[in-house]
């Protein structure tokens, strides 16, 4: 692996601020970006990436290869939870394995954004390094399928309800644990992150260049600076969860670290088969290799409340996310450059 790629990545302002956040948490500083600032920043980032993707999509031509990429993206998001579930069942019970599988099948928008940022910072003149606007659509399409698959897994393999407490339970047996499908699908497809991302993408497509010019001083120009602030907070949050790792055990941590390059390699393989450029390939790798810590946890708390968020959020936030944005992104690009050469 070309070590200069890794160093380049570690020297981008965004990653340095992530490191600052980690440092602050480790020395137990009282530094904090209290809620709802991080939530606000994440709405901003999703809106910005969605709009920009939509505008780019409008500017470019859509051919069959784009449709294939989008289909492949959905496929990856639905397939990775399946094998993950069975691997995770070796260590976890059904609800926890299903929630974790859904988490790792879905994607992390901030990892995607960080990868875009990294590609940009390379200042490459090769157009193959500029990802297409449809990659944002691919991201949007990958958020939800894993949620649905995860809940189906949790349901299908659910152990029969324990009877021990049925006497004290005022609800009829069949009422407990039933899936509310309307609610689940709403949560999967209409959760805040998906709505903002897809909505902004569509708005980016709908508006004309004049409209884009009028808003891009807010949604485009300051984007990378805002990302720094957001990653500062992510560093704080991720590092503060490090102490929870002990309770998770080494096999889970191994899964969290190994599944990232594994899933990313799947993404790279698909990208290679589809013959897309290096930029698109990196983003597909990052989408496949990243794990959700916003949309999926929110959905799991509703649909699989038996699962322990102390496991699936901790893994995706404190292990997979830092791995991907520091080492993963340059590593995947190194693999791609070797293959594409």
């Amino acid at each position, binding site marked *: 692996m070309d070590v200069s790629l890794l160093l380049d990545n570690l020297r981008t302002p965004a990653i340095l601020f992530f490191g600052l956040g980690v440092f602050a948490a480790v020395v137990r500083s009282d530094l904090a970006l209290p809620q709802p600032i*991080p939530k606000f920043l994440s709405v901003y980032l999703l809106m910005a990436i969605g709009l920009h993707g939509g505008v780019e999509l409008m500017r470019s031509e859509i051919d069959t290869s784009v449709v294939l990429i989008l289909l492949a993206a959905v496929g990856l998001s639905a397939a990775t939870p399946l094998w993950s579930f069975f691997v995770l069942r070796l260590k976890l019970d059904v609800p926890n394995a299903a929630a974790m599988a859904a988490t790792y099948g879905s994607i992390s928008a901030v990892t995607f954004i960080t990868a875009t940022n990294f590609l940009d910072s390379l200042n490459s003149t090769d157009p193959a390094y500029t990802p297409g606007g449809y990659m944002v659509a691919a991201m949007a399409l990958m958020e939800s399928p894993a949620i649905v698959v995860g809940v189906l897994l949790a349901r299908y393999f659910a152990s029969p309800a324990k009877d021990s407490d049925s006497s004290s339970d005022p609800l009829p047996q069949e009422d407990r*644990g039933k899936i509310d499908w309307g609610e689940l699908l709403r949560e999967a497809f209409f959760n805040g992150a998906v709505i903002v991302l897809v909505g902004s993408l569509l708005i980016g497509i709908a508006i004309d260049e004049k409209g884009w010019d009028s808003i891009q001083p807010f949604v485009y120009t300051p984007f990378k600076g805002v990302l720094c602030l957001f990653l500062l907070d*992510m560093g704080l*949050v991720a590092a503060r969860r490090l102490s929870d790792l002990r309770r998770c055990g080494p096999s889970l941590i191994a899964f969290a670290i190994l599944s990232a390059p594994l899933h990313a390699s799947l993404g790279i393989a698909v990208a290679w088969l589809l013959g897309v450029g290096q930029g698109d390939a990196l983003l597909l790798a990052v989408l496949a290799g990243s794990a959700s810590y916003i949309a999926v946890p929110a959905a799991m708390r509703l649909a699989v409340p038996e699962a*322990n968020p*102390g496991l699936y959020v901790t893994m995706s936030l404190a292990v997979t996310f830092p791995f991907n944005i520091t080492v993963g992104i340059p590593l995947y690009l190194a693999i791609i450059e070797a293959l594409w050469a």
Partner: protein
Amino acid sequence: MKPIKRMEIVIGTVHADRVIEALRSVGVTGYTVINGVSGSGDRGTRRIDGVSGAFENCMVISACDESLVDPAVKKIKPILKRFGGLCLVSDAQWIMH
């Protein structure tokens, strides 16, 4: 002054609507909701840390007639059993205005 019961429920914010609907369904229409609450219980620690609001709790406080407590509790218990949380009932005097 009138003696009433004070119910105090801690529940994940994402599940709060269920609790409020349960209260309403038995005729409890007065309640107060405190948002942005964190805590710790059987199911671990719930921080309000950045990123997602999925692990935020809220506290629902309701002053109601003693006769409404039992039906309300009957509705709320299964919600707490499924999603975790806490329900306390205590005595208070309601200052009628």
